[in-house]
């Protein structure tokens, strides 16, 4: 039997406990949780906050593809929680959470790492940094063109 998935683009504050609770499973002994937050600096420049722009429909489709790929590689039983924030966050705000549970730990670390790496390259999300001097800039990313 396949594990369960929660895939979401959030416009309310991301709650880490909801992710932990969702993947909890009597048959699973391990969960790995990755949490991304807004840092107070980037490339040496002080940052005030970040706005995330998200193409929701395609993002959810890619999240589903990542869930399918993860189960194919690390086991059908994986429970997966993938949530990305859309909108503006201050320093320390949670932009993304990924939680993976499995009977054993190796699969949770590998799948969690795989999902965050793929998200950075494949999911239609863009980051605009807001600086102390009032300036804003869209962060350079990875082109989807060559795929």
């Amino acid at each position, binding site marked *: 039997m396949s594990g369960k998935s929660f895939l979401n683009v959030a416009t309310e504050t991301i709650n880490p406990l909801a992710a932990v609770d969702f993947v909890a499973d009597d048959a699973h002994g391990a969960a790995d949780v990755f949490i991304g937050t807004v840092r107070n600096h980037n490339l040496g420049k002080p940052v005030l906050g970040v706005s995330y722009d998200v193409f929701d429909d395609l993002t959810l489709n890619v999240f589903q593809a990542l869930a399918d790929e993860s189960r194919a590689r690390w086991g059908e039983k994986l429970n997966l929680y993938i949530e990305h924030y859309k909108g503006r966050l201050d320093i320390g705000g949670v932009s993304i959470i990924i939680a993976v549970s499995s009977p054993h730990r190796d699969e949770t670390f590998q799948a969690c790492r795989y999902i965050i790496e793929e*998200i950075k390259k494949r999911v239609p999300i863009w980051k605009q940094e807001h600086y102390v001097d009032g300036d804003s800039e869209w962060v350079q990313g990875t082109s989807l063109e060559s795929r």
Partner: protein
Amino acid sequence: MQTSITLQIKLFGAFRQFQNGPVTLEVPSGISVAEVKTALWAKLQEIKPGADLALLHASALANSSSVLEANTRLTESQSLAILPPVCGG
């Protein structure tokens, strides 16, 4: 006579500087995705003359289920999105 189709193209990320809502293009049916990008280039120049559109080369056209290949041909009116290089996480 060639029929035309209507493409609504949502703008994301750095393209939001042009306008917040989608851009509408009237194009000939059978147009390739690569050609749509050229038509979009012209439209964005019209909205904001002199804008730097280098970003468009690295950007992809997609619908809600997948990124489109450059040689795909479009024969129906539809909603698309122009996606600059991504940086989620």
